[in-house]
């Protein structure tokens, strides 16, 4: 088996958004996700999650086009009002088809 390259998209978002973001990811074609609980701070002030103490770190492995769409979607629908950031990077996996589809 040789390695293929897919995109790893990482999203840091306040916890209240979990369901909505996961729903959007499915819509945009992500086949799976991994969530970890984190905390942090950035340029924005406090956000509702803060006093509940949690942000979420959502990772999803997808093909390059889907990755692009996810970042676009987040920038349009979440960046304006929510404490959300996202970034993408290339990673090598076995069986890229599982994620690229």
């Amino acid at each position: 088996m040789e390695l293929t390259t897919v995109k790893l998209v990482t999203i840091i978002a306040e916890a209240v958004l979990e369901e909505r973001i996961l729903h959007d990811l499915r819509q945009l074609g992500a086949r799976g996700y991994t969530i970890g609980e984190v905390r942090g701070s950035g340029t924005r002030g406090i956000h509702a999650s803060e006093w509940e103490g949690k942000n979420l770190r959502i990772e999803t492995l997808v093909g390059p086009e889907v990755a692009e769409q996810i970042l676009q979607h987040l920038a349009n629908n979440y960046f304006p009002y929510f404490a959300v950031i996202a970034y993408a990077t290339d990673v090598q996996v076995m069986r890229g088809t599982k994620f690229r589809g």
Partner: protein
Amino acid sequence: MAIVELVQINLLSPMVLAFALGIVATLVHSDLKLPDELYTTLSIYLLLAIGLKGGIALSQTSLAAFWAPAIATLALGLIIPVIAYTVARRLGRLSIADAAALAAHYGSVSAVTFAASQTFLDTVGVRYEGFMPALVAILEVPAIVIALLIAQMAGGQQDGDWREALRELVTSKSILLLVGGMIIGWLAGPHGGKEVAPLFVDLFKGALTFFLLELGMVAARRFRDLPSAGWFLLGFAIMMPVFNGFLGVWFGSMAGLSLGGSTILGVLAASASYIAAPAAVRIALPQANPGFYLTAALGITFPFNLALGLPLYYTLATWIIGS
């Protein structure tokens, strides 16, 4: 008792002192930090315990006396958000979203403030109706819905997802645990209740003390936003509860609630939600500034009610009803 005396009794209760300790811990930058999981566990425990006790009480008390207070409570849930919104818009010149957010928080209720009021009355030795937790459940949701509708009509929130927010509201853990706990208590009755009393009754005040230690730290973290909040918010976060508290006591007395019951309804009206409301508002009114409504509800109103509100609303009740 004179109000000074009541305030003193209240301030020297372990719960209020633990809240103060939490504030100190944050101000001196202590490394004290309660695990988030403990916070979640305690809030689940408190809501369930409140519901259970209420349900057991309901299983013994006749509901004849229940309808009037229920309607009075519902009325509060409809009126208060409208008043709060108008005040915030007219006097405070706040944006539609910020005003509606405040309306949602102050129209809804804080279960912990409710628990503290019960403990306060127990200490003072004043009795109250067993079905009060049912009133908490009744008061929690409507105000939030009203506030979101207002914002909706005022056209201030095309970005929010308010259907989603409503669905989450009625299935929110606070409602589920309160109502669920009441049903369990009501079905299990005093006998079944006795089996779980050591956990859900005996430990209640201790758990509340622990929880307030954490809330003190949370509230103190909001303090640093006070300067940026401005004078209006400060005034609003103190005057609004007092006004709502008066309204609650008054409605309660008219609905035939006892001295203790009217006091508690006053406390419910005066309290500002910080579990159900923030989550709902965050989703339905994202453009509302959390630094604004959280600071008001958690940083100012909650400490005020806990320290001075409880004795104050009780005194109001003694005036209106006469002890």
